[in-house]
């Protein structure tokens, strides 16, 4: 009887430990999102997360009393203060035939209110992919999924350390897909500024296509690659032209320990994307779209440091309120930017402190622009995170922004851009 009690006690302790270890997941982003751990995946694992937030923008209106998007709370861009269910995603992933670890899938739907859903009746599939793992060193992922690229976009958004994207991420990488029927408004006063004019979802750093990828381990190092060929049309299932995008990605990481999204390591990565876009306002026009970047991420608690430099040419987003050029909301200039991020996990507590500086410079091709005119977007964000448990946390952040432009008409809109407060609770299930 005594023996039974001892064994039962050990088994109970093991059950608790088992719960902890199951929090950990696979490897890097490519593997974490595109594969399942061999012979441990279920037929359909239900999962998702909810993000509820409040944001307040302290910017002033332009001379005519109107507001441009950086001064408004997205995605609706109606006012400067709003509660929002920013993301509410639910999905399933696993392997249809658990006995065969060579095939897995990933399905995720967005029901929250953001740039993805504001143009899609409030619900849309963000991911729907199948991975074939039959060839060692060349896994094949097909369907709709995140493109191999810059860290902010490729990483799982529910473990993102900030609430708002960097300017370079938001403007250079988060592609807007306007429709020919979209009408562009001049900046309007709040509370009904209605600056979100798009009928279609933002690209959400995703594309429909096929990706060859894998990860190779060498002692403590892990080397990953991905090559993708896709429509270059964001979340839209089909293509709007015959042009295709190509994506190349490489990362090498010295792994210190742990697993999953917060695995500790030193990762260096580089990527490039290349494609063409058809101007929906004039379908006889096509423009190149090129993006590249290099970056590094270091995480070894209590410290986190990450930095990335990005550059782009063509299809440079100028804002929802910019109808006055032949490219729709884009120009054909060059742009570049970077971010540097530091995190500190306060030992022995559930608190995490964050500070990030990001800078973005884009070429201007406005009707009143002189040659070589540029606009610059510099933001310093300080934040804190409190982890209630491994699945629930609150983010608080304050962003000080310094936006300016050489082009008078653009500068007239950027004058008055000020700080922004945001608080967000994330719960993962």
């Amino acid at each position, binding site marked *: 009887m005594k023996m039974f009690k001892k*064994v039962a006690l050990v088994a109970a302790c093991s059950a608790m430990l*088992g719960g902890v270890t199951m929090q950990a997941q696979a490897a890097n982003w490519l593997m974490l999102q595109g594969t399942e751990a061999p*012979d*441990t995946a*279920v037929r359909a694992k239900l999962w998702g997360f909810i993000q509820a937030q409040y944001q307040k923008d302290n910017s002033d209106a332009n001379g005519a009393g109107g507001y441009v998007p950086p001064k408004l709370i997205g995605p609706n861009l109606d006012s400067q203060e709003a509660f929002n269910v920013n993301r509410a995603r639910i999905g399933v992933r696993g392997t249809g035939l658990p006995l065969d670890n060579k095939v897995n899938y990933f399905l995720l739907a967005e029901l929250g209110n953001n740039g993805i859903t504001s143009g899609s009746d409030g619900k849309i599939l963000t991911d729907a992919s199948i991975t074939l793992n039959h060839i060692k060193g060349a896994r094949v992922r097909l369907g709709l999924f995140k493109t191999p690229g810059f860290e902010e976009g490729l990483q799982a958004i529910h473990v993102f350390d900030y609430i708002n994207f960097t300017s370079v991420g938001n403007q250079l990488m988060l592609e807007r897909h306007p429709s020919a029927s979209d009408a562009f408004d001049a900046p309007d006063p709040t509370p009904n500024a209605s600056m979100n004019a798009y009928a279609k979802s933002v690209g959400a750093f995703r594309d429909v296509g096929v990706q060859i990828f894998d990860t190779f381990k060498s002692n403590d190092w892990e080397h990953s690659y991905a090559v993708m060929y896709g429509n270059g049309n964001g979340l839209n299932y089909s293509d709007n032209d015959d042009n295709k995008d190509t994506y190349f990605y490489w990362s090498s990481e010295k792994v210190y320990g742990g697993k999953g999204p917060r695995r500790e390591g030193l990762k260096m990565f580089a990527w490039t994307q290349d494609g063409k876009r058809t101007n929906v306002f004039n379908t006889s026009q096509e423009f190149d779209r090129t993006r590249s970047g290099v970056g590094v991420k270091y995480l070894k608690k209590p410290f986190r440091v990450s930095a990335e430099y990005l550059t782009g040419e063509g299809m440079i987003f100028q804002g929802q309120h910019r109808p006055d050029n032949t490219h729709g909301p884009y120009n054909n200039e060059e742009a570049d930017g970077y971010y540097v991020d530091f995190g500190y996990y306060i030992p022995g507590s559930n608190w995490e402190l964050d500070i990030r500086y990001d800078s973005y410079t884009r070429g201007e091709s406005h009707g009143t622009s002189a040659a070589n005119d540029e606009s610059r977007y510099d933001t310093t964000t300080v934040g804190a995170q409190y982890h209630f448990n491994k699945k629930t946390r609150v983010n608080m952040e304050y962003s000080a922004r310094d936006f300016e432009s050489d082009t008078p008409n653009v500068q007239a809109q950027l004058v008055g851009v000020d700080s922004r407060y945001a608080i967000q609770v994330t719960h993962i299930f």
Partner: protein
Amino acid sequence: MKMKSIRVLTWLAAMGLALVGMTSTAIAADKSMADVKIVLQISDPNPFKQTLVLNVANNIVKHYGQDLVDVEIVAFGPGLRLLFAENANKGRIKGLTGKGVRFAACANTVKGMNKVLGHDPVLNSNATVVDAGVVRIIDLVKQGYILVKP
């Protein structure tokens, strides 16, 4: 002729050693002198149970000491996935084998999976195939093993 005889003898010796090796596993279980003898059952499709049964085995060995405990994990039904060669836990299985934990794979389940896959699943080299997982458990319980199904 002489050479042929040597080859035959060598072959017979090798077979004999292999048989000794095979039976030694059974003897180790049948005549275990350990103070504590545990058989752990995994037959559940839930992958969480895979982690759990390995944690339990590890904790039992850690608690009682490698030389004083005899642990065998018997996998059958959907639980046999734990002993697939590419299972994500293969590193832990290797580690536990090094600590004396034995792993038994059900042959009946292998046959059943063959019908679904069209071939036998490739099993972990640390697993020993037994005729029937449940019979193995019954036999071990008869020998004084405590059955735990985490």
